[in-house]
């Protein structure tokens, strides 16, 4: 487990009316940028709060940087920097004072880093936090997190309120100063394009479970959407199929690999393969998260659509 920055096994978090996290098993390797994606209410923030010890899981277990969640929480917090979704800090303190405050908790804090990022992000260091704009507040939070000397950065919507230039600078910093130095970034965001740019891995969560966890490179080079017209469908549903759905007169398959072989198999069974197309992150997200419907055919009968839960 020690080569994983974050590891969870069947994590569950239930609230009185909802199962926010529902059996989440996640593996985040060290030294990568991991994009944690999902719709609103999918369970992203709940998961993050469990990792950081803000909430306790109802069931399941996990470890961050090799330390058990819950039992060794302080050890985790010593090495993890967090940018929370609600970017609130003490209104009466200025960024300079906030830096001083934060510094006291982290032996590995770097004043040079704080100075560098304050300059780079153009933060007004002597204005009280309550008087800062949303964008500036985000930047202060980022500056504090980046100067902490952490081994892992957990970022929840880190680009909120930032203009494109600042987003670009920030991504550069993540790549150069964090991933480039061998540390790990775990970023949860709606901005798929930002995630797609720097991520090595993606984890897609919906209804509290991981629908997909794969290298972005693999997704692009091996995942394919196969659109089929016709009646014959393969008798065996292999674990490489992530999704089967119908759309009008067509049936579509989302496969993890060996798309050509699969397409050939479909051809042999008499189906007409209309298209085998690669997918970007947005398409994968939309395909997997939309409701799937049953895919029926003439001579094979109804096949229940399902999302494959085997992700290895």
């Amino acid at each position, binding site marked *: 487990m020690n080569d994983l920055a974050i590891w969870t096994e069947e994590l569950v978090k239930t609230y009185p009316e909802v199962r926010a996290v529902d059996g989440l098993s996640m593996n985040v390797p060290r030294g990568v940028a991991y994009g944690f994606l999902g719709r609103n209410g999918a369970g992203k923030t709940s998961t993050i709060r469990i990792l950081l010890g*803000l909430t306790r899981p109802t069931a399941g277990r996990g470890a961050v940087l090799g330390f058990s969640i819950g039992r060794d929480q302080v050890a985790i917090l010593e090495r993890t920097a967090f940018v929370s979704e609600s970017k609130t800090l003490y209104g009466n303190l200025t960024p300079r004072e906030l830096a001083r405050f934060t510094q006291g*908790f982290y032996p590995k804090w770097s004043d040079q880093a704080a100075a560098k990022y304050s300059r780079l992000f153009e933060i007004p260091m002597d204005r009280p936090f309550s008087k800062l704009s949303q964008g500036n507040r985000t930047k202060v939070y980022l500056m504090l997190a980046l100067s902490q000397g952490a081994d892992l950065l957990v970022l929840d919507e880190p680009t909120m309120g930032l203009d494109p230039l600042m987003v670009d600078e920030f991504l550069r910093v993540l790549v150069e100063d964090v991933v480039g130095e061998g540390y790990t970034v775990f970023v949860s965001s709606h901005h798929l394009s930002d995630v797609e740019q720097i991520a090595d891995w993606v984890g897609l969560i919906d209804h509290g479970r991981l629908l997909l966890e794969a290298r972005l490179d693999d997704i692009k080079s091996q995942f394919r959407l196969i659109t089929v017209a016709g009646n014959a469908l393969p008798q065996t549903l292999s674990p490489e199929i992530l999704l089967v759905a119908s759309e009008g007169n067509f049936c579509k398959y989302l496969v993890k690999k060996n798309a050509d072989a699969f397409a050939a198999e479909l051809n042999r069974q008499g189906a007409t393969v209309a298209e085998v197309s690669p997918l970007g992150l947005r398409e994968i997200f939309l395909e997997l998260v939309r409701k799937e419907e049953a895919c029926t055919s003439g001579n094979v009968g109804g096949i229940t659509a399902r999302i494959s839960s085997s992700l290895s």
Partner: protein
Amino acid sequence: MYFWKCWRDNRTHFIVSLIALPALCVFFTVIAVRLGDPDAVRKGTPPSVIQAWSTTTEFILGGWASVFTLMWGLVLGASGLGEEFKERTADFLLVRPRRRRFWVWAGWSVGVTELSVMVFLAVGATFGTLTYMTGHVHTWRPLATTLPLAIGGTVVYGLTYFMTIVARSGRQGLSYGIGILFIDLLLPSAVSYYWNVNLPSILGFMMGACKWVTSPTAVFPVGGLVLWTLVALAFPVAAQLVLERAEV
């Protein structure tokens, strides 16, 4: 650095009270002495000196200053940890690498220190004035009133501090604190009036301790001291237990 932050939050408040309370104590002491028999006091005639001292300790310290301390304890407690939840900075704070009990005890101890300093200065100023005006140092007893006053303040401070954590809001915590204090002030009187049972009351304890200063026969309320010290400590313990189980 958290201590520094807690200090920063209360700084203005504290400095104002630090000046106001002793100043007011001095002021009222001067008036009280003047209202008595000023000539006798200046000549150092024991009965009037004793009269001056007992008036001061009973009514100014035991009455007025005690009430001020209790109220200040309430207000101080309202800026407790619970306010972090309201301000949504709890996210930030509780992710710093410290056990949750650290936050409770660190915050609480800053308040207790501030309270104690303020009380000590007020008491010192009062007796300094008295000594100066009567030309007579009574006994060491007066300064000992710092302890019961500070403990009384700490009890109310701890209560409010704890309530803010339970209610997750400074204002709510303050309301609960005020409510409970009221009950503690009124209930014992009502109970003793109707049923002749003596319930402990925080103000009663503080006033009793002040009476002890000038009364040659009264016993120092050690029992009360122990009881209220335990109560004072119970609140941060309870706060710790609540915070450790809290879901943020």
